[in-house]
């Protein structure tokens, strides 16, 4: 006999993600799920962003790390709440692991919660964490073919950061190829060409992220943020 089921295999993950999204909406916390390959510059972007926006917004970070807490150590100096999730080999974070650590944050006193997912362009895209949006980071050293090879991420992300543009002269990266692939997949997605080490393009990124957080947390304490 055949028993009809017709349900999402990742239902368990999805239900928990929906729960998290409701909680964060209630608390007016913007959660950003950062997805990239290893070494694309997720942690460096967070360092720059904490320096630029740490005085204006209350930032928290969840660090998904396979075995170490090295990324978290780098962010300690900003005196922000950080929780590390060691996935012990796992290639992605899921909503249950996020849910378990959310209690460690005082959500009433957080505006932006950055989640640094495990470095990987495929698996994390599959698992909704309850985030406000996904952010894709690609570095020029990885080659210009990433959007074409991983279309789902570039379809799902709210913005793309192309990091390490200062290295372009030393690589065969063609920004035209990258752009045309990306535009085929997602014609409207904001693209920020940045260098986290040299500072190029970061002002535009800060402006964009501030716009996003203002739309989420505008009246968090009854006082509009400027």
């Amino acid at each position, binding site marked *: 006999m055949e*028993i009809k089921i017709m349900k999402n295999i990742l239902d368990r993950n999805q239900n928990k993600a929906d729960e998290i999204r409701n909680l964060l909406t209630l608390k007016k916390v913007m959660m950003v799920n950062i997805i990239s390959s290893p070494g694309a510059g997720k942690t460096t972007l967070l360092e720059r962003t904490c320096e630029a926006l740490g005085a204006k917004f209350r930032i928290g970070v969840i660090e998904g790390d396979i075995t170490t807490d090295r990324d978290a150590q780098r962010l300690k100096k900003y005196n922000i709440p950080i929780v590390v999730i060691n996935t012990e080999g796992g290639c992605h974070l899921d909503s249950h692991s996020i849910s378990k650590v959310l209690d460690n944050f005082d959500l009433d006193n957080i505006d932006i919660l950055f989640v640094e997912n495990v470095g990987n362009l495929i698996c994390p895209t599959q698992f909704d964490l309850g985030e406000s949006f996904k952010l894709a980071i690609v570095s020029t050293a990885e080659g210009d073919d990433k959007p074409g090879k991983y279309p789902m991420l570039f379809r799902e992300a709210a913005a793309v950061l192309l990091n390490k543009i200062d290295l372009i002269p030393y690589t065969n990266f063609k920004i035209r190829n990258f752009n045309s692939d990306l535009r085929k997949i*997602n014609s409207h997605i904001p693209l920020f060409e940045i260098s986290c080490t040299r500072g190029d393009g970061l002002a535009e990124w800060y402006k964009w992220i501030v716009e996003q957080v203002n739309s989420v947390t505008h009246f968090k304490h009854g006082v509009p943020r400027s």
Partner: protein
Amino acid sequence: MISFQGNSFREYARKKNMHELKIAEDLSAIVFETAVNNHLSKVTKVNIIFGQMIQIVPDIFEFAFREIARNSIAENAELNIEIVPVEMRCKNCGSIFFVTENRFKCSTCSSTDLDIIHGKELFIKSIEGE
């Protein structure tokens, strides 16, 4: 041919960054639960649907499922994977079309304002058994 004993495949799969394993684990949980609730003593077939945008390698997925189902009522179950292409609806002109070569653009009016109809499925459709 690589062969694994006991839990060693799971360890291997985790080290090799396989999300296929996690999805196969969730699938198996649904299969076992449904089988128990319906008093099946044997699961013969598991029908699933994957959208083409979902980046899952069917062979690895099946291998993972086999490892998890070993010594269970689903041990010999056939895994029937149906892959559905990416299909979009244009919000501008209403045309429905398939996406090929990652071209997310209406084939009629060239608009890029689209809704996805199919392609992201990760569904268990049914199980068969006795």
